[in-house]
């Protein structure tokens, strides 16, 4: 029924079975080798393909910058509160940049991750970008402080169930916000896109690893291809930077659920690995980084593609807890806080306080870089060693394991095979750490490892075979195949 010819998989087609022909052009992953092969070269502040920005940041060009993310305090967004909404963002940007200036910052990224109302009515999001950009420009002109805005519209399409990934009424306002927002001063473009989330949510709660592979490596990949073509095209048209996507709605949901003890940590670690083949599609379509902070798949993307990445760890405790507070910074190029509400703390407004925390972390990493290769590696080793054996999700993020797993993530042709290979490598690494006695996990956790391995090993290399295997067991009322080009 299916035959393989050379590297590009070509399939004989069942009469009337259209999806097999459509899968043809998308089932081969572009990346076949690593840009960073050596764990020692996976270092904070240094990326093989740094990104230069309008106001002079060189992200990944030898130093780490702070990336501050923030949100509104508890309030509604409506016509009557809009002046307060705008004032909040003005206050946040002004407070953060003033503090960065006082701390002799070398540069800052401010991320505007829009809320529902700001994307649904793009004019709101655009106005906020304008306000923030004016402040960035003021600090640049007056004080020489370089800052850029990462514009991250929220993916409105998840408001329809089953999701209409390609025909949604919400695509238009999202893309309008991307385009007009970048013109207004949003130079780095990102999104936490949600293709496949309607399938993955239940799979997470059931620890169903095969359905996770389907959600991310089949549906997610296709949606990323669809969406990032558009984003890259707009960015190129306006001379802006298509930065990258985050599998936040998948792998971070898994991490947070594991932190709440709802699902095993070993499972959450595997979801992170599987998310790589989905998020890398942004780069395949032309995104250049810096990848988004909450995408903890970033180190793998950096190793495979050479792009700079943003990461978050202990500084993101304001938004969610995590087991990777230090190790997350091991190879970051931007260091972020995920999101903090604009509320008053004893020291000042929370975003200003977080700006300071991020700056001090960045300053330490930059001092190590200035001191040379040996001090940088010592600092990195300490960041890694303090977390690595405390949790499987930390374990997979050590530079050695990132490189080892990344090699598996590019070994096959299909996204499905690569997701499976990467996850199996992660299981090997976890089992080795357990066998060596360096990592300890409860029986509740370890009992999942053989089950997960068995499920992963049953996944075929061939994507079409995998789709055929999965369709009968999936609840097809939850997703629309055609919305993924299937």
């Amino acid at each position, binding site marked *: 029924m299916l035959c393989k010819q050379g590297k590009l998989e070509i399939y004989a087609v069942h009469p009337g079975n259209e999806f097999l022909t459509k899968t043809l052009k998308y089932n081969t992953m572009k990346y076949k080798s690593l840009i960073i092969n050596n764990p020692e070269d996976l270092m904070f502040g240094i990326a093989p393909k740094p990104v230069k920005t309008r106001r002079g940041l060189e992200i990944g060009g030898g130093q780490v910058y702070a990336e501050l993310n923030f*949100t*509104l*305090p*508890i*309030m*509604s*967004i409506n016509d009557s509160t809009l002046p307060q909404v705008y004032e909040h963002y003005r206050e946040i940007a002004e407070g953060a940049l003033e503090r960065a200036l006082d701390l002799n910052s070398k540069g800052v990224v401010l991320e505007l991750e829009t*809320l*529902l*109302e700001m994307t649904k009515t793009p004019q709101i999001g655009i106005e906020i970008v304008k306000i923030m950009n004016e402040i960035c420009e003021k600090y640049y002109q007056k004080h020489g402080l370089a800052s850029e805005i990462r514009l991250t519209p929220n993916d409105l399409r*998840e*408001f329809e*169930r089953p999701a209409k990934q390609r025909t949604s009424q919400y695509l238009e306002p999202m893309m309008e916000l991307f385009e007009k927002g970048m013109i207004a001063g949003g130079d780095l473009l990102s999104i936490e896109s949600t293709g496949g989330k309607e399938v993955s*949510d239940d799979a*997470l*709660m*059931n*620890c169903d690893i095969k359905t996770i592979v389907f959600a991310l490596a089949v549906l997610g990949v296709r949606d990323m291809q669809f969406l990032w073509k558009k984003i890259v095209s707009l960015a190129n048209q306006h001379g802006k930077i298509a930065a990258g996507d985050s599998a936040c709605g998948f792998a971070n*949901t898994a991490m947070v*659920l594991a932190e709440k*003890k*709802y*699902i*095993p940590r070993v499972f959450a670690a595997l979801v992170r690995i599987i998310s790589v083949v989905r998020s890398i599609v942004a780069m395949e379509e032309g995104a250049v980084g810096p990848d988004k902070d909450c995408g903890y798949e970033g180190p793998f993307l950096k190793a495979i593609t050479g792009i700079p990445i943003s990461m978050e760890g202990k500084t993101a405790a304001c938004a969610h807890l995590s087991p990777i507070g230090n190790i997350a910074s091991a190879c970051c190029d931007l260091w972020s806080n995920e999101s903090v*509400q604009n509320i008053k703390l004893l020291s000042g407004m929370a975003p200003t306080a977080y700006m300071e925390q991020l700056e001090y972390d960045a300053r330490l990493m930059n001092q190590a870089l200035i001191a040379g290769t040996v001090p940088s590696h010592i600092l990195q080793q300490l960041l890694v060693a303090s977390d690595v054996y405390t949790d499987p999700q930390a374990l997979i993020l050590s530079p050695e394991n990132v490189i080892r797993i990344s090699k598996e993530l590019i070994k096959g042709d299909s996204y499905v095979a690569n997701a499976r290979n990467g996850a199996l490598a992660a299981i090997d690494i976890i089992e080795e750490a357990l066998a060596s006695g360096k990592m300890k996990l409860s029986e*509740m956790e370890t009992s999942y490892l053989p089950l997960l391995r068995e499920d992963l090993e049953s996944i075929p290399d061939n994507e079409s075979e995998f789709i055929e295997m999965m369709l009968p067991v999936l609840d097809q009322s939850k997703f629309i195949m055609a919305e993924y080009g299937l």
Partner: protein
Amino acid sequence: MNEILEKLLEAVEFGKVDQKSPYPPQLRGLDGALELTVKAIETGIEPQQILESALVPAMDRVGKKFSENKIFVPQMLMSARAMGASMLQLKPFFTSGEIKTKGTFIIGTVKGDLHDIGKNLVAMMVEGAGWTVVDLGVDVPSARYIEAVNNNPGAVVALSALLTTTMVNMGEIVSDIKANLPSTKVFIGGAPVNNDFCQKIGADFYAPDPQGVVEHLSKLAS
């Protein structure tokens, strides 16, 4: 306790849906909740007793184990599936009124919010505790909660939210429900809310986890 009911309790507690089900390994090949429920009915055990002596205690054990971090959600979901298989066999007795549930529990994620993982867990646990659950889904405005209570007089309502920008909608919904149906008990839950917020918006109860909801409902029902 009757041997069939004991086995049914065990099947539901450990998530054995039917005989074919390979999970859990220690019960492989044995009858699951489906077969045991059929046997119990055929043996003449009262349907209400099947519910109260086997299914509800099984889910109570599951809820407690989950609260004590002794099992993960997937195991809890397997138990819920096993209970579902049993409930399917009992459905005619619910329809005829031969089995009475403890009451009706209406739940939904408030308007503007799509997060439903927590809501689904609560719905599952409450159903397992012997309540009829009406799940309104996500992005639910006041009118739909009110309509659901009108269709199920005396029902308890639960609102869920995950975002700081949507939790504010809870206040409006609670006001609307209380204005239209003053005697309705309204529960709230979700990551950004707490007991202070619950009191501030005039809701009746806040629970930080599904088991808390179940326990408070039990008090209401007793």
